[in-house]
């Protein structure tokens, strides 16, 4: 049942947990993410695997993910479901009911949901990209050659993915080669996502609200062990390691976890040598509207460059900055333990950036209040009165309104701004409205939705 969307309708409406604004330093730090790359020992990386081998890899990893006891968190605070907040969902305009079905109590039990990406609709894939659960590359799939193999694969993979997915649309072997890819997401909190057969066999991510890298590390470290099929126990003074239920020479197959490709010299082996070593990427998403308004954003850029950290846009690698949202992340971790990477980002650079941004906000309030109010109110005006909105326009304006809300210039709950940041993205908008729309119709529907929520 979940495959038609993976993400339940109610959650689409509510927005992802990482946008809930509940974490530490949430006024500036939107979210923290850690991603690990892992590969199975003794087999080629996905790009150099045959389709059949990729399908086998997918199967092996899927089995392990669904059978291992992966630590999931039930206690993660979820933002309130929309629909409920007063004055928001009550005044629905004609013919646009919110898609949330009532009584979703079964969803509150934490579980790991699996979906075969190659059989998902384009809309559902985009939805996961917009929720930062999947990379754009994974959504697209790599170009593949060998159509005979592809056809063979359709036959091979059909029985494997049949059980709960009978109502999903059948794969389209003619148009899209079913490059076997998968994704697992922890529901209902969506804090854990595992991509299978992306650039590496496994890409595991933990995504939390606010500045929570340490927390994310503790969790992903344990999840990584669970996927590998080992338990680590404390022994003596140092933390020592015991393999449990797994024989060290057990290969990469079933019956006790996965054996990761690793070398004592290079560390965890990855398809791209720039990731080798800890194969970890830690990134923090920050909201820096005041530093842009005071033209001090270069300070951040320089600080990142000095510390060899990457500064990217809302959607990561290669994306433009939009809505004053930036991602700060490490570039490679070879010869440098995870804890050092974490320390540099969480304790050194991000607190400094948080201080810069807060100072800039106060400075704007004190010395350029009129300009600040003008910017915020113009943005609000656009959101309240526009009849057509592009996603970029919506995001840029929501960013300024968020700043205004944090500084008490406008009285709009931050939660509804956060929800709109995601809901105005194309796939979310269409899922929310329950129908596919072309670009022009989306702009109109986006403006309608924003207008109704912002009034």
């Amino acid at each position: 049942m979940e495959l038609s969307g993976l993400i339940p309708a109610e959650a689409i409406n509510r927005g992802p947990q990482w946008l809930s604004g509940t974490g530490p330093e949430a006024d500036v730090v939107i979210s923290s993410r850690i991603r690990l790359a892992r590969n199975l020992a003794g087999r080629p990386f996905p790009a150099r695997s045959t389709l059949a081998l990729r399908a086998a890899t997918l199967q092996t990893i899927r089995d392990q993910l669904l059978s291992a006891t992966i630590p999931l968190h039930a206690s993660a605070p979820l933002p309130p479901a929309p629909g409920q907040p007063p004055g928001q969902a009550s005044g629905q305009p004609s013919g646009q009911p919110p898609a949330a079905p009532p009584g979703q109590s079964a969803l509150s039990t934490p579980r790991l949901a699996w979906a075969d990406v190659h059989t998902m609709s384009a809309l559902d894939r985009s939805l996961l990209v917009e929720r930062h659960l999947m990379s754009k590359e994974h959504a697209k799939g790599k170009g593949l050659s060998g159509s005979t193999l592809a056809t063979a694969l359709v036959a091979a993979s059909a029985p494997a993915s049949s059980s709960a997915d009978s109502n999903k649309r059948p794969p389209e072997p003619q148009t899209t080669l079913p490059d076997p890819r998968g994704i697992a997401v922890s529901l209902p909190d969506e804090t854990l996502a595992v991509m299978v057969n992306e650039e590496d066999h496994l890409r595991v991510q933990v995504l939390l609200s606010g500045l929570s890298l340490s927390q994310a590390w503790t969790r992903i470290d344990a999840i990584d062990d669970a996927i590998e099929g080992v338990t680590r126990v404390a022994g003596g003074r140092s933390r020592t390691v015991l393999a449990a239920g797994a024989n060290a020479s057990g290969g990469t197959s079933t019956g006790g976890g996965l054996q990761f490709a690793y070398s004592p010299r290079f560390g965890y082996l990855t398809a791209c040598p720039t990731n080798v070593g800890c194969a970890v990427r830690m990134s923090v998403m920050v909201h820096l509207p005041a530093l842009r308004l005071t033209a001090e954003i270069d300070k951040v850029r320089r600080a990142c460059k000095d510390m060899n950290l990457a500064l990217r846009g809302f959607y990561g690698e290669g994306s433009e900055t939009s809505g004053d949202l930036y991602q700060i992340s490490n570039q490679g971790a070879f010869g440098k333990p995870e804890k050092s990477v974490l320390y540099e980002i969480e304790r050194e650079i991000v607190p400094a950036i948080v201080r810069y941004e807060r100072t800039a906000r106060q400075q704007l309030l004190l010395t350029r209040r009129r300009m600040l109010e003008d910017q915020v109110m113009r943005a609000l005006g656009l959101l309240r009165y526009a009849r057509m909105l592009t996603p970029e326009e919506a995001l840029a304006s929501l960013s300024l309104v968020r700043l205004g809300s944090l500084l008490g210039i406008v009285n709009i709950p931050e939660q509804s701004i956060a929800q709109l940041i995601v809901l105005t993205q194309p796939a979310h908008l269409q899922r929310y409205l329950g129908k596919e729309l072309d670009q022009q119709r989306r702009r109109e529907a986006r403006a309608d939705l924003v207008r109704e929520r912002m009034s």
Partner: protein
Amino acid sequence: MKCDGCQNQATVHNLVIVNGKPKEQHLCESCAAKKGLGDGLAPVAQLLLQGIKHITAEAAAERAEEIPAISCQSCGLTLAHFRHSGLLGCPACYDAFAAQLGPLLDRAHDGATSHTGKIPGRLLTARATSPTTAALGAAPTLTHSGIDLAEYQRRENALRKQLDAAVAAEQFERAACLRDELLKLVNMVASGTTDDPASSGPASEGNAR
């Protein structure tokens, strides 16, 4: 065309704005240099020559570092393919292209030469520790398929040092032997074979100097 300043052939042609009006200048190389125009406005022939020099230099450099015909025994990826795509094919590629990856990693990660950080739990199975060491509270020895990892690390470090020394002393034959020893050791741990490392590791240590 004659130079504006002397009777030499004009090779530098310039357009200047004097009192708001454009004025053409035609100068020979030496007069242009005197007016400070020489560097920025090299004669066409000179530019061309430079271009050719540049191209030939590049070609020469390219020829000099012609991509060696190395490929991974395990997945067949060639070095040329890796250079082109930036992606390795399989875990064994790291051994096959170790020499080429070394400098690349140095550039990418601040000169680090080996991994520090998390180690897969499965690689670190605790060898049953004797009651004495347990009582003393010492951490159990970390082993992998019967290979004592601490001992392995020590051997690997020793081999590496010797290898560096051999390369520095241009003893390439010896370096090749040491490299093979090292690879054997690495492969042994990576593949989890239970050969006794003692038979391979220190053999070369004896005749190190």
